Structure formats: structure tokens, C-alpha cells
């Protein structure tokens, strides 16, 4: 079980992860969804969510032109409504990072995130993953979304997982590292908590639920467990870690319930795109439809909003 370590001195003692009561988590999660978000608070929330989106395209069919369009949309969500924010970032495969960098230029407020480390399954040797990470950063990525080796995690090789994350973090240099746990493959909330603790201690700047490539993606209970890990770490060390639920969040109402959860667990300090993101592709248009409804009093047909 012992593996060669690059950060042996600060490895996380995984036995310290607290137990999670699944029934209790589901009950607490349900309470967030009963908060009623109205009027000014709703509009502010919608703008906040738009500004927290990592606008994503991670398809085999991606083309340079599709990536350019995505970059434009990130900066111009719906120009017929003035004053809208930009999204937080675009999220693309590593080979499109240079395309995105040209499209956005160097002064854009929109960050470029890229999924390195053999996304989405993570089956590659470590050197390959590190090289992919370095190249993406070299091409202009501001943020790297890595996947953990779930097989190693599930077989109990926590040190391996820790060391791999620490190595990728080193390869990131100045780029911020988001660690994807792929919670849909972790089977239990106890595992979600342990994986969160390992990632946080190994140096993750963000922890992220899912790749969006398997059926079970972000849920409120899973995100709650991860937020509690972030809060506990902050209380002990004073270091803030970001959170990114990804996959399965496609409606404004659900996204607002996530904000409620953030506000009431880790606190309002996390309610900025520096510390909280949504990984989503179709969410943006649903938000825009809700904003348009608030501005104009009527719902507009989906075809009034660009699909990218």
C-alpha cells in the first residue's frame, strides 16, 4: 500500500475524517430547498449564479470554433439585457486552451479552466498527467480541473491519492487546482468526506463533485458533505478552499438552493466566484430566462437565447 511520496511530511491522517450520517445529511439538505427566494434576493442570486458558472464544453465533438463561441458567450451572456455579469470561467479540454486564450485575450475577467489528468476516467500514468497539466498551464490555463484516481481510493490507497494530488498541484504552478472527486463513484458519504479531506490537505484550491460524464453527478447532500469538510478545515487552519458542484444542476431554482446551502454552512464569504463555482452547460440559459422574466414580466421562449 505504501507508495513513493512527494509530500510525505504533510500527508493527511485519513482516520481523522469524521463519520457521516447519511439520513441526517439528507434531512438537512432538504431544509435548504424549503427556503423561499423572492424578488430582490432572487435577482441578486441569479446574477451571482451567472457569475459563478464555469461555462463548459467537454465533448468529443468540440471544435475550435465551438470553443470561440463559448468564450464569446462567457463575456456576452445576453446583451439585450444590459448589466449582466460574465461567467466565472470557460472550461475546455487541454488542446483547446490556446484557442480560448486567443479568443479571450489576456485581460478578460473570464478565466480559462481546463480538465487535465486524463479526464474523465483518470486512467493514465502520473508522468502523463503531470505533463498534460504543465502544457495546459503553459498554453494559458488559469485553473486545472483534475480527477482523482477513484480505483486507488476505493482500494484504500489513500496515500497514493494524496501524493498524486500534491504532485499535480506542484505542476500547476500559479494555476488554481480543482480536484474532482467523482462522488458518483465513491459509493458512500463517508468516502466523500474522506476524499474531500485528502484533497484539501493535499493542496486543492477547490474541491469539485463530478466530471459530469457519469449519471450520478452533483447533489445537494454530496455538496453539503464537501462544504462541511471545507468549513472544518477553515476553522482549524484559516485557509479557505473553494467548492464546485458540477453536473446535474440545470435549473435556476436548484442553483439558488445551492447558494442557500453555501450561505448557511460555510458562510457568505464563500458567495463569490473566487470560492464557489457551478460546473454547468445548460444552466446559464435557464438563469437568463429567469432574469428576463424578472426584467420584463413574461417568460420568453427558449429560442430567444443562444445555444452554444
Amino acid at each position, binding site marked *: 500500500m505504501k507508495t513513493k511520496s512527494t509530500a510525505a511530511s504533510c500527508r493527511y491522517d485519513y482516520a481523522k475524517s469524521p463519520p*457521516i450520517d447519511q439520513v*441526517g445529511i439528507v434531512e438537512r439538505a432538504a431544509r435548504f430547498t424549503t427556503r*423561499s427566494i423572492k*424578488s430582490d434576493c*432572487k435577482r441578486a*442570486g441569479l446574477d451571482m449564479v451567472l457569475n459563478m458558472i464555469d461555462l463548459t464544453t467537454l465533448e468529443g465533438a468540440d471544435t475550435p470554433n465551438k470553443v470561440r463561441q463559448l468564450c464569446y458567450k462567457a463575456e456576452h451572456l445576453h446583451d439585450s439585457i444590459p448589466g449582466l455579469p460574465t461567467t466565472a470561467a470557460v472550461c475546455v479540454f487541454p488542446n483547446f486552451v490556446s484557442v480560448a486564450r486567443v479568443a479571450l485575450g489576456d485581460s478578460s475577467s473570464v478565466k480559462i479552466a481546463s480538465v487535465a489528468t486524463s479526464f474523465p476516467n483518470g486512467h493514465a500514468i502520473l508522468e502523463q498527467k503531470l505533463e498534460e497539466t504543465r502544457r495546459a498551464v503553459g498554453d494559458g490555463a488559469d485553473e486545472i480541473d483534475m480527477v482523482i484516481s477513484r480505483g486507488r481510493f476505493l482500494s484504500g490507497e489513500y496515500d497514493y491519492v494524496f501524493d498524486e494530488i500534491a504532485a499535480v498541484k506542484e505542476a500547476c504552478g500559479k494555476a488554481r487546482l480543482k480536484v474532482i472527486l467523482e462522488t458518483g463513484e465513491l459509493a458512500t458519504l463517508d468516502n466523500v468526506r474522506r476524499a474531500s479531506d485528502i484533497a484539501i490537505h493535499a493542496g486543492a484550491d477547490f474541491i469539485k463533485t463530478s466530471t459530469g460524464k457519469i449519471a450520478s453527478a452533483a447533489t445537494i447532500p454530496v455538496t453539503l458533505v464537501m462544504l462541511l469538510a471545507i468549513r472544518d478545515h477553515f476553522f482549524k487552519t484559516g485557509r479557505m478552499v473553494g467548492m464546485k458542484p458540477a453536473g446535474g444542476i440545470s435549473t435556476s431554482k436548484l442553483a439558488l438552493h445551492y447558494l442557500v446551502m453555501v450561505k*448557511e454552512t460555510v458562510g457568505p464569504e464563500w458567495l463569490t466566484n*473566487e470560492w464557489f463555482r457551478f460546473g454547468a452547460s445548460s444552466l446559464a440559459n435557464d438563469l437568463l430566462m429567469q432574469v428576463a422574466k424578472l426584467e420584463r414580466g413574461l417568460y420568453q421562449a427558449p429560442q430567444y437565447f443562444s445555444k452554444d
Partner: protein
Amino acid sequence: MATKQKTLEWEYAPAPEAAKIAKVAKRYGHFINGKWTAPSSGDYFRTTNPATNKKLSEVADGSAADVNAAVKAARVAYEGPWGKMSGRERGKYIFRIARLMQERAREFAIIETLDGGKPIRESRDIDVPLAANHFFYNAGWADKLEYAFPNRKVSSLGVAGQVIPWNFPLLMAAWKIAPALATGNTVVLKPAETTPLTALKLAEIIADSGLPDGVVNIVTGAGETGAAIVNHPDVNKVAFTGSTGVGKLIQKSIAGTDKRATLELGGKAANIILEDAAIDQAVEGIVNGIYFNQGHVCCAGSRLFVQETVFEEVMWKLKRRMETLIVGDPLDKNTDVGAINSKEQLKTIQKYLKAGVEDGAEMFQPKCDLPSTGNWCSPTVFTNVAQSSRIAQEEIFGPVLAVQTFRTVPEVIEKANNTPYGLSAGVWSDKGARLFQISNALEAGVVWGNTYNQFDPASPFGGYKESGFGREGGLHGLAAYLDF
């Protein structure tokens, strides 16, 4: 455009439920023999909204003569149509009441919140649906009593006199009325004087259901009216939920009669957190245990015992969680903690807050702006509490938690049982064996493991020691209305 949009103060906008939907009459009489009846004395008393102290309506002040008329109507109905009716036919009426309650759930929830001060979230999601479920559950048993109690011959008791408290007005009415009807008894019920409105709305749907006249009679009034019901010679069964003090009086007054009785009285429940518990979920359980319904809950987890190794963690997490509780307008859908039920109860709670501080306990209350009118109390937690302190011994019936620490399991069992009460308890541990070991040693009618304040019509509920006797809910609850 800025990347960081600073909206750190993201406060929820008001989201009030529409009070107008609820129809409250200016004045209510008693509901006797299927008719609204003016009180014989001609006297009425006010019922107010505890969140504003404004008058909502006025209700009849019941005298001995009114109670007599109600018991008489109940007796006639028992000797007449209801006593002769088959269980299957009785069940149809009870099902109908349950469905009517569901159909008017929103109105019931609003009135419950207006009259009692509890948050609309609770009356909407817990009180009203659970009350309807009690009617559904008991309706199903009405024609199956011979299967409920196999090889036993059962018969109904007669007229049940029922007196209920102000903390769960509609739910307690359902707990009392539904099993009584399912087993073929007739009812005279008195709701609490501060919260009579939902019981009177229940009378409306009972009338709509076509239930034969006199099967359910509702008489309003204060303590004397309740005493008149309990002491009436033609009442066969007394069912009371309320304070231990009044419960003792009832015991005395029915001594020497052949009246059957169930009493569900006060409590001072221990909620025990072991070091291996899932702490964040346990904190939710603490909050749910003591701040649910402003702590106006007989089974509230008002004494918290925390194993010393996790005391600091539990406390900072609990205090942080308390900071997120929203205290205010009970009709707002985002309110977590509503108004204290009455001025008198607020005075009682304030007396205990003072006593706790004087005893040297440390008091914590989260920062929250309380409304300027109405009856309010911030959620409160006391640490450094002595087992002999009044706030650890006496039932406060408010949002006040007394925290103690312990080192060993035998120690906490001894402390938890060191109370005249024995209604409920909670235990939190990740180890199943520990849960069973401790819950078996606790003298309490209900022990929750890794959860708190869970209720179900199929599950019996009731107390040990001075928390009363008899069970409500489930088959035990039916048995309390039957002769074997």
C-alpha cells in the same frame, strides 16, 4: 465587468404566506350536537396572534352547563347511531375527515400559525400533514379491530373527555379524536384557551363530513371548563395532554371512579452526544430537539449531554448553526423560530433565563433582531450548568438548552435518569451497539437514535414516571380507547 461581484450580504427577501386565505370568523360558539351553540353564560374570550398580540377572534367561554350539554349529546350519539354503526361505516367518516383536512391544509396551516405563533414551515410541513395522517391511519383500523387485537374481544368505552394543550393544537386534537372514533367512542374535546381556532376549524370539516350529530363535540374555555369535562360523571375515559401539575390534579379527581385515563405530561429530555457521533448531524438534532416549535414541545431535548472530548467542537458548531436560525414573522416561509405562544409563557421563560444566569451558567444567544411587538425569545443555550440547577431540572417549555458534559457512559445514564420526568431521550453515536445499550438503560417512553423529534401515527408515544402513562399512536393508542 468585474469578476468578483460582491454580494456578501445576500439576505432573504420576506416571503410571507397570504394570511387572507384563512377564513376566521369574528366569533365562535361551542360545537355541540353538530351545531354551533352560544355559551350559556353569554361570555366570550379573545384569542390573539402571539406574534402581534392582536385579536384574531373570540370564542365561547364554556361553563359546566355547556359541558353537560356536550356530554349529553355525546352520550345520545353513542347510544344511538354511532354505537350501532359498523366499523366499516365509521372508517368512511374518518377517511372523509382526513381528506377534507388535506384539501384545506393550507388554510389549517395558516390559522395554526396565526393563533399559535409557530413558523408556517412547521405547521405546513409537520402539524397539518401529520394530523391528517393520524386520521388516515386510524380510519384504516376502524373495521379491523379484531385483527388488531387477535383472539381478544374488544368493545368501545363510551364518551371520551379530552383536554389538549396549546403547543400542537390541531395535531393533538387529531391524536385524541381519531383513535376515539376508530374504536367507536364519542368525544367531548376542549382545546387550549390560547389556541382554540384550528380545533374549531376541525369542527367545520367534521360538520362537512356528515359525521352524525354529537359524535364529536368541541367546547372552548380555560382550566375550569377542562375540569368540568374531566369530573363529569358520564364521561368514561379521560385523555389529557398538558402539564404534570394539572395531570396530578386529574389523577386525584378521578381517583375512586371507574374512568379510564391516559395522561401525557411534561418532560425534560436528555439528548446525549457521544464522541464517536457524526457531529454535524448531531448538531442538527440538537437544534431540531430544542428549537423546534420554540421549544414548546413536551419531548424537547432540553438537557444536552456532550462527551467531554467533543464538547468544544459541538459548541462552536452549535453556536454557528444557531446564528443561521431565522427568528421572526411566523407567517414568513423562511422563519425557523416563531413567536412564544403567550405573554404568560414568555414571562415563565424569562424567569428561567434569569435563574440560569444567577446560578452562574454561561448564556449564549445568537445575534438576531426580534420584532418590536409580540412575544419573542431568542434561541438560548446555557453552558457550565449544574445538574442541581433549576434550568437543568425543571421543564421550561421554551427555546432554552442546558448543556452538561460527561466522561463515561454510566455517568451520563445516571444523570439522564436523574429527573422526575421520563418522556423522551436522544442518543447519538456511530456505533449501533452503544445506541442499544444506552437506550435500554434510559427511563424514557421514546428514545431516538441518531435523530430527534420523529413522529409517526403508527408509532406509540407516551411517558414514564411523572411524564404520564398510557400511549397514543399505533395499536397501543387504539387499545387506550377499548375495553378488553
